[in-house]
């Protein structure tokens, strides 16, 4: 299911005084099973881009192909798109509406051709995937019977994500999934994304959190004022921390610490963007320091 975005431009409020150009001639390709991060200044067109990819907006120009098929062609099966591509919006907890968690998660399954037992199994799997474990082997997790509105903020978000996972999409798009999460919630979410990725799901994640994306993404796209202005591995994107700052994406704590250590002569290579690698390097340094 590769995604191809070809020469896409998009404007809002066409032929009015409020006309804004949100995206301009964007082209890129996402391969199966990739984890791609999307970064950029507020208002650079990130949300527009992912709405276009999910078929919620129609581009003014250009084409978006998923698995070689143009999703805006008249004959394209929109229901098929909804099944293969899941999108988790910013603050997804605001979309909960059913009386129980179970029903809410099952909402995405409503139009699927599945038996009751299969649906229940999907719901159970989705809730487990976001960390609600069942006590017994057969029954659903305890949370399934509760009202989604009675949960804490973090729980609500996980239930909302489960609601998207339940449909079993092979491509997942997250819009600012880390906004407003506490540190443990953030780590839990990132582990969930990594787990889904390792199971073969293609993941696109919009975030301002450079460290999070560096730790997990294979590739990062950077948007600036509606244009795709950089594309590459985290190491390439943050090779020059000054340039990253100029693109309003910040360099990330890890990369900045690595830069400082490099300038002090403690590191041979400053291009470290992963937290775990930096931690190992520092441990090695401490050990070496103790040795002398």
């Amino acid at each position, binding site marked *: 299911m590769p995604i191809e975005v070809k020469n896409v431009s998009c404007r809002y409020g066409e032929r009015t005084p409020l006309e804004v150009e949100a995206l301009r001639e964007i082209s890129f390709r996402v391969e199966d099973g990739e984890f791609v991060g999307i970064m950029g200044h507020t208002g650079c067109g990130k949300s527009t881009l992912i709405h276009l990819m999910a078929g*919620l907006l129609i581009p003014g120009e250009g084409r978006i192909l998923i698995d070689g098929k143009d999703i805006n062609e008249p004959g394209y099966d929109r229901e098929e798109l909804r099944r293969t591509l899941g999108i988790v*919006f910013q603050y997804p907890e605001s*979309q909960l509406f059913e009386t129980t968690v179970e029903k809410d998660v099952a*909402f*995405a399954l409503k139009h699927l051709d599945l038996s009751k037992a299969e649906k229940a199994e999907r719901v159970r799997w989705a809730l487990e995937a976001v960390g609600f474990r069942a006590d017994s082997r057969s029954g659903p997790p305890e949370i399934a019977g509760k009202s989604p509105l009675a949960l804490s903020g973090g729980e609500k978000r996980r239930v909302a994500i489960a609601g998207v996972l339940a*449909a079993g999409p092979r491509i997942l798009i997250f819009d600012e999934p880390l906004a407003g999460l506490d540190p443990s919630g953030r780590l839990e979410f990132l582990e969930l994304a990594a787990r889904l990725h390792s199971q073969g799901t293609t993941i696109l994640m919009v975030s301002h959190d450079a460290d999070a994306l560096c730790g997990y993404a294979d590739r990062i796209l950077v948007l600036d004022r509606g244009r795709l202005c950089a594309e590459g591995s985290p190491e390439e994107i943050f090779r020059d921390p000054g340039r990253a700052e100029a693109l309003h994406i910040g360099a990330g704590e890890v990369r900045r610490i690595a830069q400082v250590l490099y300038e002090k002569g403690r590191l041979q290579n400053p291009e470290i963007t992963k937290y775990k690698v930096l931690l190992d390097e520092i441990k090695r340094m401490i050990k070496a320091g103790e040795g002398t």
Partner: protein
Amino acid sequence: MSFLPTGSYREGDSVLHRMDAFCKLLCTILFLAGVILSDSFPGYGLAAGCLLAVTLVSHLGPGTALRGVKRMWLFFCLILLMNTAFFETEQIWWEWWIFRFSADGFFQGLQVVLRVAMAMVLGNLLMSTTSPLELAGAMESLLYPLKLIGVPVRDVAMILGVAIQFIPTFSEEAEAIRKAQTARGARFESRKLSEKAKSVVPLVVPVFLAAFRRADELAMAMEARGYRRTKGKISKRRRHLSRRDGIGLLLCSLFGAAEIML
């Protein structure tokens, strides 16, 4: 921004835009009274001519002025038909079953349609040239006399102002939720009526929840910044009326008087 509701504010710099909101509201009421009081075709002609003049002065263009009216065409046709078919009169064009088509009924219907359409254009002109906040302020001034009989005018105006201010926020929120639910497989795009009706729940429930949450948050924020019900002395903003406000009021009064005469 395709979801801008009918009658929403358009920025501009015409005489109508620069008029004081309170005077504009008074003028609208006078004009409306004129439209309603007129009951002859010369009267309607005069009203239509004046409306056209006001529209030209507003720089809004006929499209904006007629917004909403076009959408009501079915309603207008129905009114016309009902009046033509059921008006009690002696002179009948044609009779069939319970229907009694008459020329008098047709003209009666036409009058109703003209009045409603003109009132709508008038409302459109007011809403399109006055920012919601100015309008709320004008309402407050207008309702001021009610204070004497103990109506909490300031609070009412505050509520109105807040409600108006939140319309764009809510329409944005509704749009975001609509997208989220569509992505989860809700069928808003479906043409089947039964599916359409069912798809309303996933949209309405979250929007209402968001509205309540926002109301709570706003109330808290207002309290935290020291807002409380004003009692006793009120510092009232003075309105600075200019010549164009006076001329506007004069013209509208003249129009109202002319309509009564015609």
